[in-house]
């Protein structure tokens, strides 16, 4: 019995008793939990609403937009925002609103793919080195130190410049520079649980080391990783846009927020602010959304938050 904890945890113990033990299916219980997380925290709710907006722009965008994002129109150059063109038009007469909406898909693909890659490889490497230790841990640790030793954006620039200017290479570069964060986090989370009681119990139940790592320890390391994933999504979008901005990423005329900001920046001085501001706002909104999302995602994957 732990007195200090006791006093604080006690109200929970009291409330747990009268809960009616109703048999529920896993899915309905999970949905109820998601609903609780969303309604208990308005910020999380806002984040999920914004995420829905961004996702629908990415999925349905090309079908919804009023103009073809690549269609130039010589008679409509540099028009300020109006009812016909909500975000105005650019130097070639393309509709900025359509381009901003359509660009969501490419930016999301780049960031989701990059984060997914670094999460899968980073957490696998980190989990293995945290669980087994020894030479494997040392090797992975030094690899991360090497990556971290470079200014990360410069490293990404170098990778893209060396491999070539394609969407695939932007994804790889972004994934590589994010890798150490996942490795270190997974290593730390797995390491503290390596000798936990439930791991010993799993050994007694006849689980092999790999099974223990994959099914017993790793799922418990997920909640803090979710926060990292969400923050990283924001960074990855910024990173991809940054590479495009300096000309090392997606090439025109493909609509992408980074290039649009880069192209629009030339015209800010002459007063055509809408070219850079709207893609910039879209970028900001996306990063903001992912930053807000982290806590909510963690609460959803953490069973301890359920009652």
């Amino acid at each position: 019995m732990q007195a200090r904890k006791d006093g604080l945890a006690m109200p929970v113990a009291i409330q747990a008793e009268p809960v009616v033990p109703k048999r529920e299916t896993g899915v309905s219980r999970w949905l109820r939990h998601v609903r609780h997380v969303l309604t208990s925290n308005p910020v999380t709710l806002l984040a999920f609403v914004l995420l829905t907006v961004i996702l629908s722009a990415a999925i349905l965008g090309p079908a919804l937009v009023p103009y073809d994002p690549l269609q130039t129109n010589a008679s409509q150059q540099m028009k300020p925002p109006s009812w016909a063109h909500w975000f105005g038009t650019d130097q070639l007469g393309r509709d900025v609103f359509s381009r901003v909406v359509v660009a969501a898909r490419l930016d999301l693909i780049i960031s989701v793919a990059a984060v997914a890659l670094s999460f899968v490889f980073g957490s696998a490497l980190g989990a293995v080195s945290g669980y087994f230790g020894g030479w494997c841990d040392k090797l992975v640790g030094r690899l991360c130190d090497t990556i971290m030793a470079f200014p990360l954006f410069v490293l990404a620039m170098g990778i893209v410049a060396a491999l070539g200017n394609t969407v695939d290479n932007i994804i790889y570069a972004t994934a590589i520079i994010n890798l150490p964060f996942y490795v270190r986090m997974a290593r730390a989370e797995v390491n503290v649980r390596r000798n936990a009681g439930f791991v010993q119990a799993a050994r007694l139940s006849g689980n092999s080391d790999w099974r223990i790592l994959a099914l017993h320890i790793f799922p418990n390391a997920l909640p803090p990783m979710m926060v990292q994933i969400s923050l990283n999504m924001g960074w990855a979008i910024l990173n991809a846009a940054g590479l495009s901005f300096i000309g090392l990423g997606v090439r025109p005329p493909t609509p992408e927020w980074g290039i649009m900001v880069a192209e629009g920046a030339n015209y800010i001085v002459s007063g055509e602010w809408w070219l850079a501001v709207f893609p910039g706002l879209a970028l900001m909104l996306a990063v903001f959304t992912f930053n807000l999302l982290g806590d909510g995602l963690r609460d959803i994957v953490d069973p301890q938050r359920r009652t």
Partner: protein
Amino acid sequence: MTALPLLHVSDLTVEFQTRNGTVTAVSSVDLTVAKGETVGIVGESGSGKSVTSYAVMRILDRAGRIADGTVTFSGIELHNADDEVMREIRGREISMIFQNPRAALNPIRRVGEQIEDVLRQHAQATSRNAREKAIDLLRLVRINDPEARYLAFPFELSGGMCQRIIIAIALACRPRLLIADEPTTGLDVTTQKAVMDLVVELTRAREMSTVLITHDLGLAAQYCDRIVVMEKGRVVETAPARRIFRAPEHPYTQRLMSATPRPGITLRDLLPNRPEAAAPPPKWQRSPDATEKPILSVVDLVKEYPRAGAKARGAESAGAFRAVDGISFDILPGESVGLVGESGCGKSTTSAMVMRLLDPTSGTIRFEDRDIGAIPAKNFARDPARSRLQMVFQDSTDSLNPRFTAFRAIADPLYRIGGVTREAQARAQVERLADQVVLPHDLLDRFPHQLSGGQKARVGIARAIALEPALLVLDEPTAALDVSVQAIVLNLLADLKAELGMSYLFVSHDLNVVRLLCDRVIVMQAGRIVEQASAEEIMTSPRDAYTRELLAAVPRPPV
């Protein structure tokens, strides 16, 4: 007792705001502490005893608030005092010691400096004489060589020493009231005795009042003048310590009393209502049969750890630390053997080696006629003997995967080793196991944090017996449980043993508990076995001096 009590708590109600609405943790509690009096607050987890003391100190966490009632300390109203007043009172007038002294000390500062901090904060010392006063305080709490210990960091001191430092800090400003919240839980019995004797002696000498919060009725009865028994946020009984043991009035006190393991009773006496009274309990006590072949036979078992820094100093001669130093013992089929000792004596290391979670340095472990000690621990998961050797862990919370439901936890060994492949088959077996450990079926779909301590212990036991092992190692399975739950779990373990014919190796620090469940007791000290005899013999006529010391340290209520 003087006319005006030092501390007067009247009609105190504390509420917590939680996700599921307001929870009343303490309701209408009345409590008085006279000058120089030692009052014990006794109750099980969730009884509100700690919350009451937090409310007095006004250190409730943000969700909690004093909803009603008054707290008066020598004429000052604490329940609505502002923070400035409270800061002056905390430490100088009322001080507090907590459980887990190591957590209460700053790990990166020398203990002497931490004592000085408190002295200076309350203007009890100047920078010139602070060191001197701190060393005086260390001497007061009987720390040997106080000048050297002044410079020690908390990690260099044992748990008992850290608690002494905390006591020194608590007494630094000569407060009038000391609140001790489970000050010795987690310490060894001999350390507990030393710490409690010190607290009582020092507070008596200074005519201080003490509030001792504990779950241990025996401890409270030994050291307190008056005892307040709390249940579910209410005070159910207040009486002088002697009377509460002789004639407990409230049914809850009676239940608590009967569930406390003590000399001269049987396992069944722990339960509040004994339906078994009619049917005599099954016979667990077995006469040793010399011809019988032991199921487990440990010979000259040694576990060495390299000494910290030995490698760095480049001196191999620095040698190794022997956690287990050549021990030998047998366990017969169906026998239950207790392994008793204080923390660091090697009992957990021994059980981990027998369980094949840890490789021994040397020695043999023969189990069912095979030397399983030679099989590396990491390959043992695939060994046929794995299912025959299972374990119930000390901390039932830590030993359950937080992401696995109770069902999945119990079913895991069935799937992995038991050859069960279909969900329906597993369901049926798990439900049968749940019945055996008296766990309601609807709890099987809950996660560990949705279960109470006793329920988690049952899940752990169900998982351990799922493969019908021949030998079950019980590593302090009830150490984290309330006495009433402990009583039920101990009885459950005894019933399961009678039903399934397992052997038990029961690892514990509590001789009173071990005696109830075990036929034979092994006492360990510093990696060696100092005494090995039948349970009754150990309790009534211990031969070794260390065993006698252990027995003497167990709190003895004034009966």
